């Protein structure tokens, strides 16, 4: 290329530098692109794990002082295995239940109830058929496992005795 031969030293140096610079920029762009592609490829299969990992973690406390009102910062606190803000048992499946079952009604409707897996299954089906509950996909099985395990019926016979633990005894003065 005849023009090159006519370049003076200064021009040549500037040209080389420009070439080097643009090469460096190009390389960084390629590197970035690679990281992005690898990231996306990794993210897809691990999506829910990553999201779970990014979401706030409940603080597990071992000491109980259930009478005390937690303030807003303690909102993800777990005491005695119970997630305070929702009253749900903090156990595998909790996140799925919190995410899907506290949207329409409070979790109190869940924690009040006891049923077998089949009974829970019927309740979910009823809500899907009549109350607008969405398709839970693979989470359905996890939610059912959780409910059947932690909100299972307890045998109590034809009629339970008065719950003496619950009675607040008081002195009644009579004439």
């Amino acid at each position: 290329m005849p023009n090159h031969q006519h370049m003076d030293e200064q021009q040549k140096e500037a040209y080389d530098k420009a070439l080097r610079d643009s090469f460096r920029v190009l390389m960084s762009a390629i590197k970035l692109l690679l990281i992005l592609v690898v990231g996306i490829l990794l993210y897809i299969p691990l999506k829910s794990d990553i999201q779970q990992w990014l979401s706030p973690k409940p603080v597990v406390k071992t000491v109980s002082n259930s009478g005390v009102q937690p303030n807003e910062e303690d909102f993800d606190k777990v005491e005695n295995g119970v997630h305070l803000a929702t009253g749900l048992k903090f156990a595998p499946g909790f996140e799925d239940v919190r995410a899907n079952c506290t949207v329409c009604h409070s979790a109190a409707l869940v924690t009040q109830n006891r049923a077998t897996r089949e009974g829970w299954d019927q309740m979910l089906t009823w809500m899907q058929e009549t109350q607008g509950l969405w398709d839970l996909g693979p989470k359905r099985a996890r939610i059912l496992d959780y409910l059947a395990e932690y909100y299972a019926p307890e045998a109590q016979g034809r009629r339970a005795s008065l719950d003496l633990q619950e009675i607040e005894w008081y002195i009644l003065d009579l004439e």
Partner: protein
Amino acid sequence: MQNKIPLSRRHFLRQTTLTTMGFALGAPIVFGHFMPKGLTPVALSNGASFDSLPGKRPEMIVLNERPVNAETPPHLLNDVLTPKDLFFVRNNGLPPRRDEINADTWTIRFDGEALRTEKSFTLAELKAQFKHYTYQLTLECGGNGRKEFNPPAKGNQWGLGAVGCAAWTGVRLKDVLNAIGLKSNAVYIGYYGKDMHLSGDPDKNPISRGVPMSKALEEESLIAWAMNGEDLPLLNGYPVRLVFGGWPASCSGKWLERISIRNKVHDGAKMVGQSYRVPCKPVAPGSKVEDKDMCIIESMPVKSLITYPKSGAQIKAGKQLPINGHAWAGDLEVAKVEYSIDFGATWQACQLKPPANRLAWQQFNASVSFPQKGYYEVWAKAIDSNGQAQPMLLPGWNPKGYLNNACHRIAIKVA
């Protein structure tokens, strides 16, 4: 049991509802794209909000904040007329907001296959055009007492206090229907209210029930705007509701906007399937019952509640314990109330007052003496005018846990 939310937690729940919601919505909801439109804003804007029990006393036992479901502790039901701020709340959806309601322009539409012409009345027109009546009418949730059923029954786990009796003022439904003109094929009335479905879907009704014409046309069946002489509380249906004493309270539609006169049994939300129905034939506990074998609950069964003293009284030996309470029997009258201090082995008669009017609860009282020191339970048993008595154990098991009218029991220590 964790099925009660004491007041201390209520404040906390209220405070965190929004945050919980925010998190719930931000958390990964797989298949969340199937959520109906409008759900998110509703959930956030209406999330049991921040005074979820307006006009109610803090002693109310809250079973659920969204939707609001709260019952009265039995010892606070001691008044002949249940005060407004102690009357139980069973909401199926989200009530209209107070500032959305204009009682002056509130309109009730009458329509349906079995009405001559469609017609609308404003509340003011109803008040001006028809004679007013006041009746003391007992309302009890069909699921009152559900928590005792075993195997457990689905829904809010009501204890004893989803019942009350108030003086309701309004016009007779029959006067209004006769003025509009019923057709001979009328079978059932179905109501629609202004409450919103929990999903926020405007095309869904949280509840739309009703009663057969025979009940609708009774003298005591009211379109009511007042409770104990004052406006209805918001949570009990302000500005206007139906009241059908003695039947499951879910028949008595709140925030009443529309009444359909049907030529068949009304088929609105929670009229069908298993809601407010029991097996037509008795079933073994835990049985699965097909929808077609479930029958609609009509008149509620005979029942009573000891409202004084509160369970847990410790008294001195040798003293007489006065007890009193209410008894009611659906469409019927209560004929007798008895009490037992020996777990049902022997029964003593209580004094019983006649009802103020048909379908009002009746007051009973007795003076109880105890043979020696020790732990006692005082049980009360009412018997209706057909000779039906309350059972001591649970009555027939049913999948949704309705109609538990087992005897009320209070614990007493004599020391």
